[in-house]
């Protein structure tokens, strides 16, 4: 059983209102020393009976077609197969 964890983050330079507000909230909670906070998305996809390469291929296709907005987001993929490594 293989699953993919996709990290979707805003491209650098794109304003992140959420990150800005959360940083401010942390400071108000007394959590100092944080320079910047960025909020992104985490998408886990569990595959059925597919090879690792096929899973990677499908994940990239999913990201390009739907999961990541190419105009303002970047994505990175981590593949995890059930039997470790």
């Amino acid at each position: 059983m293989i699953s993919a964890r996709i990290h979707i983050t805003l491209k650098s330079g794109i304003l992140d209102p959420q990150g800005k507000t959360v940083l401010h909230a942390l400071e108000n909670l007394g959590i100092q020393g944080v320079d910047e906070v960025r909020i992104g998305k985490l998408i886990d996809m569990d595959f059925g009976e597919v090879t690792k390469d096929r899973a990677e291929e499908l994940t990239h296709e999913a990201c390009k077609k739907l999961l990541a907005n190419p105009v303002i987001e970047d994505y990175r993929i981590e593949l995890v197969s059930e039997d470790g490594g």
Partner: protein
Amino acid sequence: MKFAVIVFPGSNCDHDCYYALKHALKQDVEFVWHKEASLSHYDAIILPGGFSYGDYLRTGAIARFSPVMRAVVEFANAGGIVVGICNGFQVLCEAGLLPGALMRNDSLKFVCKFVNLRVENSDTAFTTLCGPGEILNIPVAHAEGLYYADSVTLESVKRNNQVLFRYTDESGEPNSESNPNGSLDNIAGVMNERGNVMGMMPHPDRCFEEVLTSTDGAKIFGSMVEWLSERT
């Protein structure tokens, strides 16, 4: 009798709650800025709807740490009447004053429309003017209104009669078509065990006079006025 309407940065329905209480219910009401520390000279606290802190991270997650919330918790623990409407309900859950959490609507879309609510418990500070099982017509407007609680919490909330309102159809049937957001058991509003803190997703502050299509909202504010006047 004096009401306080808390204003967080990003609250939008503070004006509506204020206007409903002052003009429709003829009550003494004041805005209280979220940086205030004491709420001693008020008889009831309203946390209004809106997008406190832009609903960023999680709705109500940041507002819960505003200075005034310490006073709200003290006020609630001392038995004072506290009501959270929409975003206010989310803040009360995040602050642990009410059981469960509000999650994203199952439609993944913001929903703004009139819904039917069945009064599940009419013997409370918030529903004493309503008949048992009465159907109220009140609008909802939210993107994160799906009421969730783990099975243990849900059981105790139901067992202790803490469920105040359920989404139903016109005949009072709590079915999935009449559930605007996928809440468990069509729950639209709950109170704490003690019965002095209540949260509801629908907006009574948007239907308190004839010109606003329904006046059922006035029954909820009116119940609180009735309940408080008997006890102060």
